[in-house]
């Protein structure tokens, strides 16, 4: 019998592709529409990570299918002549996966620090 996405342990989704983790991070504190996710990611990374519309919506589609993200409804956007925009938010599973990936990366950073690859001042 096929397992529902909710049945999968969060660790089974790891490691996450970079774009996927960026989107989960953008949705961790609030629901957002596509462009707001894109802006959040670009601003947080000082422009180093830029998601194009195709990458963004392709990843959102997979996250929706995996049950990590859900649609939060549509709202009119005054910035775009009140065009209706679809909002996305994390599900409980999505939040658990984002936390698990953060812990995984934290453990890696701890190892890198122990091996004095980082944390010794400017390289």
């Amino acid at each position, binding site marked *: 019998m096929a397992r529902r996405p909710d049945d999968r342990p969060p660790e089974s989704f790891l490691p996450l592709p970079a774009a996927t983790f960026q989107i989960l991070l953008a949705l961790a504190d609030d629901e957002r529409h596509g462009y707001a996710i*894109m802006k959040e990611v670009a601003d947080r990374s000082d422009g180093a990570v830029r998601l*194009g519309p*195709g*990458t963004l*919506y*392709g990843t959102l589609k997979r996250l929706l299918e995996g049950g990590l993200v859900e649609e939060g409804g549509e709202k009119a956007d005054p910035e775009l002549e009140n065009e209706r925009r679809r909002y996305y938010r994390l599900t409980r599973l999505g939040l658990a996966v984002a936390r698990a990936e953060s812990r995984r990366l934290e453990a890696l950073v701890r190892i890198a620090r122990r091996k004095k690859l980082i944390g010794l001042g400017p390289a």
Partner: protein
Amino acid sequence: MSSDRWYTLLLRAYPRGFRAQYGREMLLVFRQCRRDGERNAAGFWAAMLWDVARSAPALRLEAMRAQRSTDFHPAEGTMKTMGILAVLVGAVEMINSLIEEVAGGLHRDGLQLLSVVLCMAGGVVLVMAGIAMLRRGPRASSRALGAAAACLVAFALIALAAPVMSGFAMLLGIGFPIVLLAFLFWRRGHDGTLPGMA
């Protein structure tokens, strides 16, 4: 042409279902990127093209896989193969009956003529059964069942009355309907439909 139109053209690289679900949103995001993004138009369009080139093939592949997994029914694939075989075997039998007719000329008795006619009739019903199976109409299975039975009876009569046909024609004429009948009963077990009621 406006930049919106160009981007709408680019969106055609994505699968139809994906466009239907996210195309409008992607266009809105594109507009905002165009408005708020870098002033260099060449750089902006290069980034958009790179984004499409990077994301569209994977989404197309996913859509094809999903389509295949929903469309694939082993019994349907075999039905098509059997339909093609029925048309081919039927055509061979029809050609064979014509050859026998020409070879026999005027020196044949009534039973031999009956054999040729029965062989032609067997070939015709097999071709019709094959076409029905390929068109997958509501009564394809029942037609194929009837055709297989009729063909089997026709060639059994030929074998009994006047075996003027070649061994190969007889083997095909009797063997193929048996295989077709076996397939139709296997299919009944596979999808739960009775051959006469599919």
